[in-house]
């Protein structure tokens, strides 16, 4: 019942009211998308352009006996065919050592095109480009490929056996991490109950609306220019390395991206395009089909996760022993880091003093796995939140009470020994999500209703030992309009808009008067990747700094013109005003610490009065320019730079900060057909500060449905290395008809390390949805399902097993 869970009152916190921040303004990218004016990567063409296709391995493991492309080359209209033999030194660097100057991980490179051996179904083997797409496709058919099948390894446990075929290195181990904190033996000895369970999650496809695409050409300076949908324009370096040319001879022009979710974090079409454009001297276009997008690009890692948890009768967790085994697929890509994130989040948002975690990722002849929204977090959360409910069941204690006893609080340290420095509103979020479910829907004989929730914590910003940086340029034009230049890739989550809204706030102009140039490695300052929920944190702080410098010039000139002190000047709605005559506003500073928490309440007098007392901003700009004050500034924001984790203990401070939140669902299980219907869904997250609340709500609504899909239908099926779900007909993702809208509750503690106290919400929005469903299904049936997704066959089996189970009484 709705009155049984009371939202926990929020601790005292200060949230200044601002003029543009916190307003659901129309996003700067909205109109172009709404009217179809946005030119996505696949929409772009050039005169004299060639069309490319990729020849891919039809088998998961084999030796190339013959790869004869002579007939394809001879086909009229074919401009170029390349194979691994043409590119003996072309390697794709999959490691991202950042700016640390560290060496790349050994063995982390993949061949651009297979040489001698193919290691997965879909591995690229040859490139073709031709005058038309049809000719390129016909040429693919003329490639003569003879192979000798080699024994493959199709499961990470097999891969770790001493006699397993070797896919990577001499032991198939792609990465290992370990955490040793406190004394697990002692902790287990202190426990009254030890609960042990093993959980499984499958391969998952990103399934963004826009498959990978791009056009490349050689410009008049000889620079290879690639217009591509990507989360990482810095891949110009990866392309340069693969081609063996200087980094300043490759330019990546990012486009508006039709969804990334981590799938466009690795190189996709860029190197192929660059090679073909260089070889032919002509523009080349390559657009993956949906089927090719499925076959060619990364997947979310399957994991096997075992939790052994010691707990006192009181509910206090005394020890956690966790093992994780992940499938890396045929090449490493970002597996080591995904595994690290999963390891760091493995125990969930709980304070546990005695912890032992061992995680390993193994190479197999399966699709390669890499980044996917949550980066190891969703897999970890499915396991730790399922485990928490199993512990509650074993102790006969309310799951909410169990969590309340163990939640991490500000000042506590995580399993990797990092102190939580910002607000940790786990209970505040969980109680609100549960309360939002309202009255419980009654059961019927064949339809059992269950409720569940899940909490989580998740880092935002990259691992700090990568020494992450971002840059942004902000400039004022003479008419009082503003230009932002920042290399941020906008992957549909409002990255560009957030930056513009921050600049509008600082410079006192309406959002419409800000224009942003983004995501071009040659002409916009490099901002780093749109990954790791880092752009608002990193580039948001960079634009805040840059705009603050410009603001200081305007304030200085306005103070002179108004005859008041610097502190008395505010910039608001295209005017410079004296606050002593107006009321309070934003202080003049670009420093996020100084700007955010100390800001005062909004200036909300009417504009005519302001106009009569203030100076039009354009006049101030003109005078400032005439006196040589800087009206443009390039700022660099550096995240904290740290060392890595201690390799023996896994202890260290390696994340900028964490987001906390919870998701609650009510579901109905048809015990005879195995169907699960989501009746209600509510998510509550502390986002620190919502720069644009409409965009934040959209992120959470979308993330929650992606997570519900993970729970209920998404599974990329691979049998003996062969993809069995090759298209959207077999691989089902949720439609708008499948789930109710998630009730989104946004909390703002103002304590994040992003601009104005913002935290990151892009990835975390997905994380708690699947374990919430898992716990609701277990509540409905009295029996848990330990593997995703919850298909009808698994549900029917669980319903049978739970037929006579007496369900514990629960308050909610």
């Amino acid at each position, binding site marked *: 019942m709705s009155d049984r869970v009371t939202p926990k009152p929020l601790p005292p916190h200060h949230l200044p009211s601002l003029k543009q921040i916190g307003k659901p303004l129309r996003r700067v990218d909205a109109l172009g998308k709404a009217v179809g004016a946005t030119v996505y990567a696949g929409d772009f063409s050039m005169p004299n352009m060639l069309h490319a296709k990729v020849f891919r391995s039809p088998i998961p493991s084999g030796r190339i006996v013959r790869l004869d492309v002579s007939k394809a080359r001879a086909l009229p209209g074919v401009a170029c065919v390349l194979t691994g033999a043409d590119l003996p030194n072309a390697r794709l660097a999959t490691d991202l050592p950042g700016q640390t100057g560290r060496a790349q991980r050994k063995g982390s490179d993949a061949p651009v095109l297979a040489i001698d051996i193919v290691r997965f179904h879909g591995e690229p083997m040859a490139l073709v480009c031709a005058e038309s797409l049809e000719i390129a496709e016909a040429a693919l058919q003329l490639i003569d490929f003879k192979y000798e099948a080699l024994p493959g390894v199709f499961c990470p446990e097999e891969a770790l056996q001493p006699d397993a075929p070797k896919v990577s290195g001499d032991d198939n181990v792609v990465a290992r991490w370990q955490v040793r904190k406190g004394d697990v033996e002692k902790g287990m000895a202190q426990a009254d109950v030890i609960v042990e369970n093993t959980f499984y999650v499958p391969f998952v496809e990103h399934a963004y609306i826009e498959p990978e695409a791009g056009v490349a050409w050689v410009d008049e300076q000889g620079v290879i220019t690639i217009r591509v949908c990507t989360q990482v324009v810095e891949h110009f370096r990866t392309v340069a390395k693969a081609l063996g040319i200087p980094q300043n001879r490759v330019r990546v022009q990012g486009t508006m991206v039709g969804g990334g979710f981590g799938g466009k974090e690795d190189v996709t079409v860029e190197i192929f395009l660059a090679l073909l454009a260089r070889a032919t001297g002509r523009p080349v276009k390559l657009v993956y089909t949906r089927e090719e997008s499925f076959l060619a690009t990364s997947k979310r890692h399957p994991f096997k996760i075992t939790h052994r948890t010691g707990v006192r009768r009181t509910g206090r967790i005394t020890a956690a022993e966790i093992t994780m085994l992940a499938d890396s697929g045929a090449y490493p890509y970002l597996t080591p880091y995904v595994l690290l994130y999963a390891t760091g989040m493995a125990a969930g948002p709980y304070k546990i003093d005695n912890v032992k975690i061992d995680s390993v990722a193994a190479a197999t002849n399966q699709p390669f796995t890499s980044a996917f929204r949550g980066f190891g977090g969703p897999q970890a959360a499915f396991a730790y939140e399922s485990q928490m409910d199993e512990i509650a069941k074993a102790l006969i204690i309310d799951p909410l009470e169990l969590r309340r006893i163990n939640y991490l609080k500000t000042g506590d340290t995580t399993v990797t020994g990092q102190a939580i420095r910002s607000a940790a509103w786990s209970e505040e979020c969980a109680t609100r999500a549960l309360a939002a479910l309202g009255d419980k829907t009654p059961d019927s004989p064949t339809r059992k209703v269950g409720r569940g929730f899940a909490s989580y914590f998740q880092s935002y910003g990259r691992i700090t030992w990568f020494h992450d940086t971002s840059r942004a340029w902000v400039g004022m034009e003479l008419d009082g309009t503003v230009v932002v230049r920042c290399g941020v890739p906008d992957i549909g989550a409002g990255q560009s808009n957030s930056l513009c809204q921050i600049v509008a706030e600082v410079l006192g102009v309406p959002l419409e008067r800000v224009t942003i140039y983004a995501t071009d490695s040659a002409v916009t300052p490099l901002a780093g990747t749109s990954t790791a929920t880092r752009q608002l944190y990193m580039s948001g702080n960079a634009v805040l700094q840059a705009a603050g410098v410009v603001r200081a010039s305007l304030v200085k000139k306005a103070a002179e013109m108004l005859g008041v002190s610097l502190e008395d000047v505010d910039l608001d709605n295209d005017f410079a005003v004296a606050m002593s005559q107006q009321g309070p506003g934003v202080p003049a500073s670009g420093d996020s610490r100084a700007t955010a928490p100390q800001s005062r309440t909004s200036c909300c007098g009417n504009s005519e009065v302001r106009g009569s007392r203030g100076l039009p901003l354009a006049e101030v700009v003109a005078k400032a320019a005439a006196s040589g004050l800087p009206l443009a500034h390039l700022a660099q924001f550096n995240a904290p730079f740290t060392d890595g984790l201690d390799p023996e203990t896994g202890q260290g401070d390696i994340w900028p900060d964490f987001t906390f939140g919870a998701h609650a669902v009510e579901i109905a299980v048809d015990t005879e057909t195995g169907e699960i219907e989501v009746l209600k869904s509510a998510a509550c997250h502390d986002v620190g500060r919502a720069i644009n609340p409409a965009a934040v709500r959209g992120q959470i609504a979308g993330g929650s449905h992606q997570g519900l899909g993970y729970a209920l239908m998404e599974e990329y099926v691979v049998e003996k290395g062969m993809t069995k779900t090759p298209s959207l007909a077999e691989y089902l993702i949720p439609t708008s*008809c499948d789930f109710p809208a998630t009730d989104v509750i946004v909390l703002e503690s103002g304590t994040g390390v992003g601009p104005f106290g913002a935290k990151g919400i892009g990835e975390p929005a997905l994380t708690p949805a699947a374990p919430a469903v898992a716990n609701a299904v277990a509540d409905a049936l009295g029996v848990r399902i330990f593997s995703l997704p919850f298909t009808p*066959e698994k549900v029917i089996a669980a319903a049978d097993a739970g037929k006579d189970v007496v369900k514990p009484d629960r308050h909610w």
Partner: protein
Amino acid sequence: MSLPQFEVQQPQTLGEALKILSEVKGAEPIAGGTNLMVDMRAGTHQPRVVVDVAALRDLHGIEVTDTEVIIGAATTIAEMLESPILAKHATVLVKACSSFANALIRNRATVGGNLVTAAPCSDTAPALLTLDAEVKLASVRGMRRVPLEKFLVNAFSTIRRSDELLVSVRFRIPSATATGAFRKMGLRKVSCMAKVDVAVLLDGDTTGRCTSARIALAAASPVAVRARAAEAALVGKALTPEAIAAAAALAAKAAAPRAGSEYKLRVVEALVRRLLAEAALALTRGGSNA
């Protein structure tokens, strides 16, 4: 993949179409193309010549006579969904159409195409099986009428010869009291292939006795099938929960899911039981239309 090169013939009359099918080797009819085009793009099916029959007048329209309903083979699923004739005489079919794929596909896909494709998960086939439908096949050699149950041979296999065109589907108007029910079980609510389809059409007298029962299943065996033993067990009996449960158990025996999908037997039994109960309840209230 792009579509391969192929020839398109656009006959203006049924006669022309049949002539092409009889004379041009490898010619295949196309109507909505929602299956064929996908297969052609994937390269799994590559007819050299396709004969576009979507516009042939003889293949269109839903008509009712004193005794029969006749649906042109090129009638789209969307047209069936909006047909007052089907709403009056064949709600079981309308319900099947409403669960068919999604609105975009329903605008193109045709009933003839759905039957000729003979996919295991056809949504129209089980509904039409409960209506005891017949298909009419035409060729230059003449016409023949075949019960749908005989027409469907196996997964993606029918008795249609390569020179034949399916021109219409017909069924006798069910009695005014006969009541139909349909349920599709899939992994999502729209745009998905059935995991199990069940259609029932039940009739009874005023005493609550079953006078006619037809039960059909799809996606639970290689091709849509009638559950005849279950039907026989009901006819002449009172529609008690026990009789319905017994029939549902028999219906599951008519299913033959692939190895690894045995759970479908459970789903079939549950859905048949529910649909029979639903139809039986409607009968006690005077029955609706089929």
